[in-house]
């Protein structure tokens, strides 16, 4: 018997809940059985870290991929490992780091599954050098309503690239082979610089990012006047064995969260005043300039993993994350977006600014060359909806797009403009799923399947 239950699901932002039958298959044939027996709206879900509604399916079936947990050993010749789609990056790193390997791409949390990382084609601080997650996948196994496929960039590449960032709509990922990168230590050498305004920060990123494998800036979108967009730029690379003090452990696996938020915070705890104060304190605590600081992988890559369930801080109405990318030619949209949010009093937590390198062939993959800005916005301010709608139009017009793994509120009419390969994506999905059995609240809200 495949374990089955009923549950109400939301994304990490705790918005727009819906109920579904949740099934937990343990292998490809059980996944196939679940898809076969479901009437409609089947979607896979990992650890629920997408902010909006891509891993929930109102009245449908959600496949909990955490039952797909098989793991091979790391191939010492190639550095590759084959894993079940339900294995989290945290679980993988606990094994990989002591063996001298790291994941080629990591988001700001380790609490995502391999399946989710592929479905969202996640990116990290190294996109400008290493590309996104899918660029490091050798092959994967996909279960669709019309059968099980092993796909790779050379084997049914069309289906492979529809699956990259395809939000689970081309099939259920059950297994994948990932190329890891070798590391000598579990430390990162970090250079930190503080900038008083957005222009200086963006200039520094344009001129200096290519000297670093990893680069990210945290910017303050609540500061007033000329200080709007002031930020802290941290850049670094893996430390070699001789760069780390001898008393430091060489290859230490990540720790567990030290703190948990035990319950949902009261309404309005995070408001424009408390957020502005937090941003101020955070900016002040950063050094003006510091080079060669030795930080652990967790501190540098996964600062939020120190506090579990931090999303509860946003209170009962939840929050949303707004992340867009615009091409270099439209870099002015970055300060323009910050100014618009500030002028219209939409509170946003420390925003993350990064530069992307060239995008890959993923039909719905988010990253494209240019600038990406991500902001956390607490819900409550109803007018934020109209402000973000305005921003969407600016971004679409500039040839940019919104990240589907973060979205919870975009208007469907902008999707074909933001994702020009949408029709191609739909054609591939229709090929393997002619009856449109696969679907999520996201795909229905944005009409992704057509």
């Amino acid at each position: 018997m495949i374990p089955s239950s009923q549950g109400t699901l939301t994304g990490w932002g705790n918005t727009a809940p819906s109920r579904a039958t949740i099934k937990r298959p343990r292998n490809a044939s059980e996944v196939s059985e679940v898809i076969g027996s479901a009437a409609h709206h089947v979607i896979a879900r990992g650890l629920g870290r997408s902010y909006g509604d891509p891993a929930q399916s109102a009245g449908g079936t959600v496949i909990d991929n955490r039952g797909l947990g098989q793991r091979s050993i790391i191939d010492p010749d190639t550095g590759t490992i084959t894993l079940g789609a339900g294995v989290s990056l945290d679980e993988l790193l606990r094994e990989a780091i002591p063996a001298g390997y790291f994941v080629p791409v990591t988001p700001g949390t380790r609490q995502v599954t391999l399946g989710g990382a592929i479905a969202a084609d996640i990116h990290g601080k190294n996109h400008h050098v290493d590309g996104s997650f899918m660029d490091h996948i050798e092959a994967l196994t996909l279960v669709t309503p019309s059968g099980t496929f092993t796909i790779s960039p050379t084997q049914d590449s069309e289906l492979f690239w529809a699956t990259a960032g395809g939000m689970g709509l081309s099939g259920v990922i059950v297994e994948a082979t990932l190329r890891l990168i070798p590391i000598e230590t579990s430390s990162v050498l970090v250079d930190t610089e503080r900038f008083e305004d957005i222009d200086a920060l963006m200039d520094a990123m344009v001129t200096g990012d290519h000297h670093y494998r990893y680069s990210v800036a945290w910017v303050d979108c609540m500061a007033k006047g000329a200080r709007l967009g002031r930020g802290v730029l941290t850049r670094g690379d893996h430390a070699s064995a001789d760069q780390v003090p001898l008393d430091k452990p060489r290859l230490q696996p990540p720790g567990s969260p030290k703190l948990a938020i035990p319950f949902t915070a009261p309404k309005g705890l995070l408001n424009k005043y408390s957020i502005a104060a937090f941003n101020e304190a955070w900016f002040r605590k950063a050094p003006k300039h510091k080079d060669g600081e030795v930080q652990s992988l967790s501190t540098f890559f996964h600062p939020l993993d120190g506090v579990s369930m931090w999303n509860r801080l946003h209170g009962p109405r939840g929050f949303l994350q707004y992340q867009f990318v615009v091409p270099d030619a439209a870099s002015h949209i970055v300060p323009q977006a910050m100014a618009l949010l500030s002028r219209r009093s939409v509170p946003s937590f420390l925003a993350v600014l990064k530069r992307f390198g060239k995008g890959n062939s993923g039909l719905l993959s988010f990253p494209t060359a240019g600038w990406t800005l991500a902001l956390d916005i607490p819900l409550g301010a109803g007018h934020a909806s109209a402000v973000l709608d305005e921003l969407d139009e600016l971004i679409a017009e500039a040839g940019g797009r919104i990240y589907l793994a973060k979205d919870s509120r975009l208007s469907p009419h902008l999707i074909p403009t933001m994702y020009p390969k949408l029709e191609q994506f739909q054609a591939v999905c229709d090929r393997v799923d002619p009856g449109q059995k696969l679907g999520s609240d996201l795909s229905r809200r944005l009409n992704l399947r057509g």
Partner: protein
Amino acid sequence: MRDAFGQPQSVMVLGGTSEIALCVVSKLAMARCKKVVLAVRNTQAGEEVAETLRALGADVSVIAMESTKPETAAGTIAAGFEAAGGHLDLIVIAAAILGEQDDLDDDPGATAELFTINTTWPAAAMAALRPRLIAQGSGHVAVFSSVAALRPRRSLYTYSASKAGLDTFTTGWAESVRDAGIKVQIIRPGFVHSKMTTGKDAPPFSTDADQAAETIVAGLASNSHVIWSPSILQWVFMMLVHVPQALWRKMPG
């Protein structure tokens, strides 16, 4: 599907020619709501409302409802879901008549009919809605009650009682679908200047339909069980329900 702001993409209005409901749906249509089903007693009036909404870019279907025949409620609900393509994010129950109390006082037929339209038909429709909403795994129902439901007045008691019945039914019904993830809200407007209230004396805190709609749309996005319009009426009525009858009788409106 509803978005993070709680904005629906599809709505059905039972009693689709209601002036406040039209104002509410117009505001929703200007945001994300592009599929509208209007269930109306008078299809010609319904088509006029539909044109207004189509001008805002909504795809509107008009279906007939016979609110004096509760046995037809299930059929209306089925037709509404079919017109919407099988899924509805929001259902607004707005069908009601106010009646002239002087005419109703001694008229058993008219009294019974008012209860049928205002209470029995909506309750039957909600019974038909329940399994559909549970099956679709999400949904939002907003039921127009009235502040009049909280305490009857000489000039309005038949209407008050009919809304009190629906209000109480909805409160219990909400509990019955709570675990199914269905959001239910009761809307209690005060006096709204509209064609329904033409010629009636306006008490304090009266609003026009557009002002009421603004408060209601904001309320629909909130997690409140009751939406008061204007919102101050929540506090006013907390007091008014305890005012001695002798004083209540003399109050204006």
